[in-house]
């Protein structure tokens, strides 16, 4: 007996909610630093703030030991530019990221990351995650350094991306946070930020939350608050019945961190950015089938008759050998690696791939579907490092993929894994599982975040942002460690002289009424899932690829309608549903910012994948700028900011100088 239906059938009763519920109970927790979100960035922020002597509370919607996108592991670590084997400097790497994104990139954050990513990794090693081939399993492999025993991924020439055995990364950093005495509050869905005097735009003095098992209310008062809640995966697509096992973010990815900052009056940036939902969740379980991208980079793809698909570099030169797929082509200093998500905008930094016109070649009959990947054609080291090390540590792979497929009898020494059979455009990207594997043409939010300075501080005093998705310029796994670690230190410095946090009782009371209204309501409203689906529909329809002023305004109207009708009379049965409903409320706020930011950008933009049908000219020079957006007394304000604001006054004009000033470190020269 495993599922609810079986229980009911067997016992003849509906099981009672297993946790004591008390919607009236209020708990107050006071600290120096409050971290909102216990993913990688959040736990790292908590650790570094605690190391600096601050009293730290960390609140996570799930359980910080396993929660978040990185909770299920890591196999490749980007931006480790200061590792002893790297041939890329932080300056070069930062420029690569900035140029690749044509300037739409918080490159100061990338610089911080590349200065500290390797140090962040070394700490993980110290705490118990393996980062070296100590057993000499890959001795002599060309992706290994014999002295340090480090393994490299994707770009064997430049050695700035490392292969790591990170399946246990989250338990490892969780234990360290516990050891340092961080007060970890699991199952707390944060619902709002508290501000001085209860006003928008003032100093942040804590947050409120609800326990999703007991329903109890929490008031957190803190001198500094760090937002590390990840992205908003549920905003544009919500069909969990179909997508859970194939989606890239879990259910708690609901943009709450952005939404509560928006309501508190913080400035957000690039909220108008969207992208095709390649990781849509309508595809297949990630890494579970034949493909040649990211984790499977370099693997031979063969067609139904055994004919191999050729590989090319970014400039379409043919690559003759498997080894060459991991080397830079002519005209390239280094490659960024596909996993970083920004490598496809400029060929100078792009990875090698199977031929770029594969769909056409299939259409013309050159290749016959289905494709397979043939690991047996790789060297033993390459095969083992791919199926065994990378699949096995990647994230959602050790048990779901490696163990599941192996137990079912798959053997990489003998078998070929089939690739999806899908619409031909799907084969444009080598990550076949993430491609358009017969999915509806969906869109997603594309990376809007808090505008942050060189301290990763937001526009509000006492509020910091630290993670891949909440700090403008963040990135993937290693990036989340590095930004979290950095923001924790800066927040700890701030609290040394910051005054005690005084919360506004009126603001707390209003929030309590808002949170619990669904609990006290007659049960004739609808629940969180149906509401979430409606929100996602509005976003797809009115904030998808093509927009104009009218459709955006209609979308805004519909979101506000949902808030005033469906959400206002929603009902919940237990604290779990209450948490999910609160997240829906944040999704509406997040959607609203996206629509408002989209209205403010009166020009189409190719890098932002932003298509205004009423301003069709693509990339007009005068719109090459950021448009930070915030609320002042509930009125929406935007302003203009140069793309490289972090190198303009009041900041210094070089990365190195700013970094040195803000970290108090010696210059590296």
């Amino acid at each position, binding site marked *: 007996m495993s*599922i609810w239906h079986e229980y009911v059938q067997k016992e003849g009763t509906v099981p009672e909610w297993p946790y004591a519920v008390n919607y009236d109970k209020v708990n107050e927790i006071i600290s120096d630093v409050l971290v909102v979100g216990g993913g990688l960035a959040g736990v790292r922020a908590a650790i570094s703030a605690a190391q600096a002597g601050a009293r730290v509370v960390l609140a996570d919607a*799930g359980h910080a030991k*396993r929660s978040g996108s990185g909770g299920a592991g890591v196999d490749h670590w980007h931006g480790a530019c200061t590792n002893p084997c790297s041939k890329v400097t932080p300056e070069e790497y930062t420029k690569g990221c900035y140029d690749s994104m044509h300037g739409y990139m918080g490159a100061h954050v990338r610089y911080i990351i590349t200065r500290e990513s390797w140090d962040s990794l070394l700490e993980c090693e110290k705490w118990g995650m393996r980062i070296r081939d100590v057993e000499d399993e890959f001795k002599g492999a060309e992706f290994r350094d014999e002295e340090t025993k480090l393994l490299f991924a994707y770009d064997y020439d430049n050695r700035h991306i490392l292969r790591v055995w990170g399946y246990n990364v989250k338990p490892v950093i969780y234990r360290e946070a516990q050891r340092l005495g961080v007060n970890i509050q699991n199952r707390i869905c944060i619902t709002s930020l508290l501000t001085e005097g209860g006003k928008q735009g003032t100093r942040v003095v804590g947050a409120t939350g609800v326990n999703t098992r007991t329903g109890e209310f929490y008031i957190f008062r803190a001198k500094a608050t760090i937002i590390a809640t990840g992205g908003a995966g549920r905003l544009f697509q919500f069909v969990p019945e179909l997508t859970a096992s194939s989606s890239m973010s879990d259910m708690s990815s609901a943009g709450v961190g952005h939404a509560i900052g928006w309501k508190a009056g913080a400035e957000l940036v690039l909220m108008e950015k969207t992208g095709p939902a390649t990781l849509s969740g309508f595809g297949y*379980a990630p890494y579970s089938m034949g493909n040649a991208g990211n984790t499977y980079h370099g693997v031979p793809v063969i067609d139904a008759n055994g004919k191999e698909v050729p590989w090319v570099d970014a400039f379409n030169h043919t690559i003759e050998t498997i080894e060459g797929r991991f080397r830079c082509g002519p005209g390239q200093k280094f490659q960024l690696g596909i996993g970083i998500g920004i490598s496809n905008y400029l060929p100078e930094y792009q990875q090698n791939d199977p031929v770029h016109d594969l769909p056409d070649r299939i259409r013309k009959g050159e290749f016959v579907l289905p494709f397979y990947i043939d690991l047996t054609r790789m060297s033993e080291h390459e095969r083992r490092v791919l199926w065994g090390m990378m699949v096995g540590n990647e994230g959602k792979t*050790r048990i779901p993929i490696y163990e599941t497929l192996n*137990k079912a009898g798959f053997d990489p020494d003998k*078998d070929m894994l089939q690739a999806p059979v899908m619409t031909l455009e799907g084969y444009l990207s080598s990550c076949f599982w993430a491609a358009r594997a017969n999915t509806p043409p969906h869109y997603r939010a594309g990376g809007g975040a808090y505008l942050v300075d060189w301290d990763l501080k937001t526009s509000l005093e006492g509020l910091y942002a630290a993670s891949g998705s909440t700090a403008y310029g963040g990135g993937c796994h290693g990036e989340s460690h590095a930004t979290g670690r950095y923001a924790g230190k800066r927040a700890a410095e701030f609290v040394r002289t910051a005054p005690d946090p005084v919360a506004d009782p009126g603001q707390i009371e209003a929030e309590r009424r808002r949170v619990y209204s669904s609990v006290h309501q007659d049960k004739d409203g609808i629940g969180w899932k149906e509401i979430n689906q409606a929100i996602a529909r509005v976003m797809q329809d009115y904030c998808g690829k093509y927009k104009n002023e009218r459709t955006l305004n209609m979308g805004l109207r519909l979101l506000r309608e949902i808030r005033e009708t469906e959400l206002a009379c929603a009902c919940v049965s237990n604290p779990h549903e209450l948490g999910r409903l609160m997240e829906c409320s944040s999704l509406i706020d997040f959607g609203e910012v996206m629509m408002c930011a989209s209205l403010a950008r009166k020009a189409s933009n190719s890098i932002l994948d932003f298509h205004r049908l009423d301003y069709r000219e693509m990339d007009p020079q005068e719109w090459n700028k950021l448009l930070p957006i915030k609320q002042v007394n509930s009125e929406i304000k935007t302003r203009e900011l140069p793309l490289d604001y972090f190198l303009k006054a009041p900041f210094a004009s070089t990365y190195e100088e700013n970094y040195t000033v803000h970290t108090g470190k010696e210059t590296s020269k």
Partner: protein
Amino acid sequence: MSKKIYMVPNPPTPNRALAFDPDVCLGCNSCVDVCPTDVLMPNPETGKPPIVLYPEECWYCGGCVEECPCTGAITMIHPASQRISMNWKRKSSGELFRVGMKNPPAPNNKPPSG
């Protein structure tokens, strides 16, 4: 099993996400504790395996399995639509296999690297 037929909603999709082996499971609820999305609930009867209450919220991360102290107490069950997409072909014989097939080949017991 009770002989009575109850009014219950249709099973959610995916139906299971996980299966527990009651002979192996200690009912320690470690898996319940760490699940990032609270898919599982403790069994009202102490010592019995947890109950999958929200299978559609399962992210298939495998965290519960990694946390479990008893090998074999929990097994992940991918949705059928995913099981039929995990296919492979044996090079030497051309045989076709998939996860969840009727007569599966012998398991490959090679542990992951590290």
